């Protein structure tokens, strides 16, 4: 039975994710309006031809804010994932290759981090370090480290039992070389899938942090901050909350679909037959 190369999940997830990235990149060069320009006279105005998504409580263009928010969400969660994978994956590889006390150390440290609810500790970290996008990256990245460390270690351990790894050992190759030549290529697909899923979790976490005021600070726009601002006005101007909320939901959904689609596509269990 042949698996279709592109599933609906993968296409829908991919399209949403691409739109998300395009929106973020677009905001670097162009937004419909300048978000530092306040149009207090028209504050809380609903959608119109001039302002597609309306104006917020300071009279800023919501469409422009959403674009800027995409940039913020993308950069924070992308760097957080790279941080997590960049630190976690090598730790996991090391733990699987060396076993013994290094393995214990890495895994018990992961347990400690896992023992704290992610968002609460992220709030703690940013509260200590001070609010801001960079500290949000660190806070979210810290939680990605054990996720990647564990995943890498687990998958690497099963690859270490393969005969071709034993063959490489019999050929006199050292642990580092085997890790790079045989283990890492075998792990790439699982890591890519996990990175996509952590990316979507990062978007939620970033929104959560900025919702409580610990993420990106004005004038930078953040979906979480927009939600928080709109909350008090929800009875008066419900659309204020709906647009950033939708942006979060659609983005996270898209990234999750992409992750699931990639998982089906790159399933390591089916890998050997190809």
């Amino acid at each position, binding site marked *: *039975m042949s698996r279709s190369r592109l599933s609906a999940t993968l296409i829908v997830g991919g399209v949403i994710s691409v739109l998300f990235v395009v929106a973020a990149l677009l905001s670097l060069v162009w937004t419909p309006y300048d978000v530092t320009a306040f149009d207090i006279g028209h504050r809380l105005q609903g959608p119109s031809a001039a302002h597609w998504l309306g104006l917020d409580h300071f009279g800023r263009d919501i469409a422009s804010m959403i674009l800027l928010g995409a940039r913020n969400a993308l950069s924070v969660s992308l760097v957080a994932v790279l941080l997590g994978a960049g630190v976690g994956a090598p730790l996991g590889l090391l733990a699987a290759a060396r076993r013994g006390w290094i393995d214990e150390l890495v895994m018990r440290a992961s347990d400690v981090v896992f023992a704290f609810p992610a968002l609460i500790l992220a709030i703690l970290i940013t509260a200590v370090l001070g609010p801001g996008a960079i500290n949000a990256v660190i806070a979210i990245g810290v939680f990605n480290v054990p996720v990647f460390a564990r995943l890498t270690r687990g998958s690497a351990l099963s690859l270490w039992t*393969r*005969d*071709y790894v*034993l*063959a*490489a*050992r*019999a*050929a*006199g*190759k*050292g642990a580092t070389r085997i890790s790079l030549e*045989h283990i890492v*290529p*075998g792990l790439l697909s699982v890591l890519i899938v996990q990175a996509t899923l952590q990316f979507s979790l990062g978007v939620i976490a970033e929104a959560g942090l900025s919702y409580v005021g610990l993420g990106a600070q004005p004038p930078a726009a953040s979906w979480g901050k927009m939600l928080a601002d709109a909350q008090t006005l929800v009875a008066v101007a419900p659309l204020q909350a709906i647009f950033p909320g939708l942006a979060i939901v659609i983005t996270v959904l898209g990234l999750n679909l992409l992750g699931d689609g990639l998982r089906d596509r790159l399933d390591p269990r089916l*890998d*050997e*037959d*190809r």
Partner: protein
Amino acid sequence: MALLEIQDLKLTIGDAPILRGLSLNLEAGQVLGVVGESGSGKSMTALSILGLPPRGAAMEGAVRFEGRDLVGLPDGELSRLRGDRIGMVFQEPMTALNPVMTIGAQVAEVARLHRGASRAEARAAARRTLDRVGLADIPLTRYPHELSGGQRQRVAIAIAVALSPRLLIADEPTTALDVTTQAEILELLRHLVREDGAALILISHDLALVAEAADHVAVMKDGKIVEQGDTGAVFKALAHPYTRALAADAERMPIRTRAPDIQAAPILEARGVVRDYPGRRGFLRAGRPVRALQGVSLEIRPGEIVGLVGESGSGKSTLLRALLALDSIQGGEVLLAGAPFTPASPRRRRRAIQLVFQDPSGSLDPRWTVERLVAEPLHLLEAKLSPPARRAKVEAALAKVGLPAQAADRYPHQFSGGQRQRIAIARALIVEPEVIALDEAVSALDVTVRAEVLDLLARLSDDLGVAYLFVTHDMGVARGLTDRVLVMREGQIVETGPTAEVFAAPKHPYTAQLIAATPNLARALAARR
């Protein structure tokens, strides 16, 4: 009326024909052996009789069981037959049994399901059935993982025969088992069907096994039965060329032209090697270590082919890993070319000893090209090779094992099992080792392919003077290829000597038991006379 009558059965999956017009008859009380190589359609025949073809398969023809055509019968009707009138035993008992259910519950389930028996009745029936298959000492409350491989297969058989089916189908029921256990299981199957007056279809790749156990035999090839009839008649006449080829390949002994120099200094030597595995650790408590090798000594001389035989758990693989210095040992020493060889030895010394595994698809990284795979041990050489020189070496190694130069650019999955094993042998040869350790290197191969690979190994040994340590559970292979044989049991070598002598007059009772339990075509035919 025949118990089972298959007429012109065709099975296609997608566009691929799997069975192409298969016909056979089976009477009650008969034992029918179905032999053939992998891909010949043996297992598909069994699954078709049960009405369990794979998804997307289309069936044509007739399968009449007790006069009733099963093809096209609704699944509910078939379910009522399966497990009741027709029982099935699979190859791997560990996966065929449910690991989280007690064996008693699994046997009782059949009676509950088909006979609507009460809990107590079903339990009593389960006890009776387990007694019948020789598990009288085993409580019903055991789980599959608490049993040995042979006991698990007995449980699987108990499930199949719990309701005394008219037809029992056993698909490679002993392939996953040790040879001494195999003989017991085959005897049990024959005994059970005789007692119930039922029929048995015994599917196997092993000609000798079928010759010993079956009254009638059907030889399959490419989804068809090429020959069938009384076992003695078929194997004695060997009228069909394919049957003849199979029998020849199964019995073939590679011809060797070069005798090893038994005076020469050993290339590989073990002296009193002891290997302990750490025991199961408790909380804050170190476990008692398990001793897997209890002072093993052996010598391999240049150009010699030494067989290491023994059943699973005898310590063969542990010994191999110790000899290759992949694991550290707790006592004794390993000498390679006269000097101690340990995991801490310089890597370049590994050049002298290379390794070939049982399963070539597992020992070749699926993401690497053949060129990269075969060249992997080259970094053991002192001099770093330029890419063209590397390529030339790879092509030379591939040529030695009879593969074309273009093979270097392809991936392992583009080759057949036999070709993959050739690639693995080429990888071992590329650094011109003095010794190659072969771990069950032909066990996963079909008889024809196996005969070819054995010939290749014998030729390479003659041409290159390389010594082999040939680890196998298959006494037939050991007899055919090796100069000297070591018999291993429970971490010790119990017998050693020239192969011909050991097989002709085994000194240790365990060796004699192993030889007697190994199916042998000539012996089976002689016994039928």
